[in-house]
């Protein structure tokens, strides 16, 4: 195992823990994006560039974006309901 692979493994382990420990959903989406990017670097270090590209696309872009849009929609509905009262 090379040093890059070892460092990538440690960073991924720390990142995954950080995603679990982040409690605010919006912040959690951002941390999940950074974690997704570190996973991509891990895949690259283990010579899987195809998987790394997919991981960047899905884990670092699409997933956090979808979470943030969904959160936005829920918050919007809450605002509307609050204004009604």
């Amino acid at each position, binding site marked *: *195992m090379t040093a890059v692979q070892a460092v990538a493994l440690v960073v991924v382990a720390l990142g995954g823990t950080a995603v679990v420990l982040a409690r605010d959903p919006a912040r959690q989406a951002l941390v999940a994006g950074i974690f997704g990017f570190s996973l991509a670097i891990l895949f690259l270090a283990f010579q899987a*560039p*195809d998987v*790394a*590209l*997919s991981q*960047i*696309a*899905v884990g670092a*872009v*699409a997933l956090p*974006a*979808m979470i943030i*849009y*969904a959160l*936005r*929609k829920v918050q*919007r509905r809450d605002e*509307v309901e609050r*204004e*009604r009262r």
Partner: protein
Amino acid sequence: MSRRLRLVIFGLGSSGMAALLAWGLAGLPSFGDFDGRYGQLLAHLTVPERHATSAVSVSTFDFRGLDTLGEEFILFTAAVGVLVLLRAQRAGETVAAEPMRQRQPTAESLTLRSIASALAAPVLVLGAYVVTHGHLTPGGGFQGGVILMTAFLLVYLAGTHLHMRGVRPLSAMEAAEGAGAAGFALIGVGGVVLAGAFLENFIGFGTVGNLISGGFIPLLNLSVGLEVMGALLVIVGELLDQRFLVRKGDW
């Protein structure tokens, strides 16, 4: 159930899980000791048999093309499902119910808008590159399609809501999604007609390393790229449109 009992049950379950995991991991081959015969076989067949240098693309689009067709249609049905749900919810609601805010830029921050507008064109080129070079280098339709989608998202971040409406006509994106999904299936049917089996290659393989080589793999990459870009943009577009919706009764 008391807290103590729950902790005991959790402790039993998790220690059993840990034991099984340790047992399973101990049986794995040691690090870097790869013994996948199928993988070795495919890696040595791709260049002589398909004239394409990306073993992963040849496996996913040619040797195991049917799996990829299924995967593509998973995304297609997921996108259609999101559309149907969101549009059914919207029935009886007014669209674009925020006329006061509509001309406002998407993002307040000038830094964000500058970075987004500077990145949009390079990201578009990168996406096109990843889609068209799928059979030569790592990447392909799935990865490139998502990168193309982010290029349009950057345009959205850089501009105003109305500008995005100009760049992203939703119906064009629906057409791209449908055309991509249909293209993959039709190329497969072309194999039945011209080569005798579904998803059997029927185009010349060309010279190894050229942009046009690998038979129909670049065509399949293009159709998957279109499908993925269209599907994700349709989903994102629908979710974003939801921002401007307020129920009729709320006015």
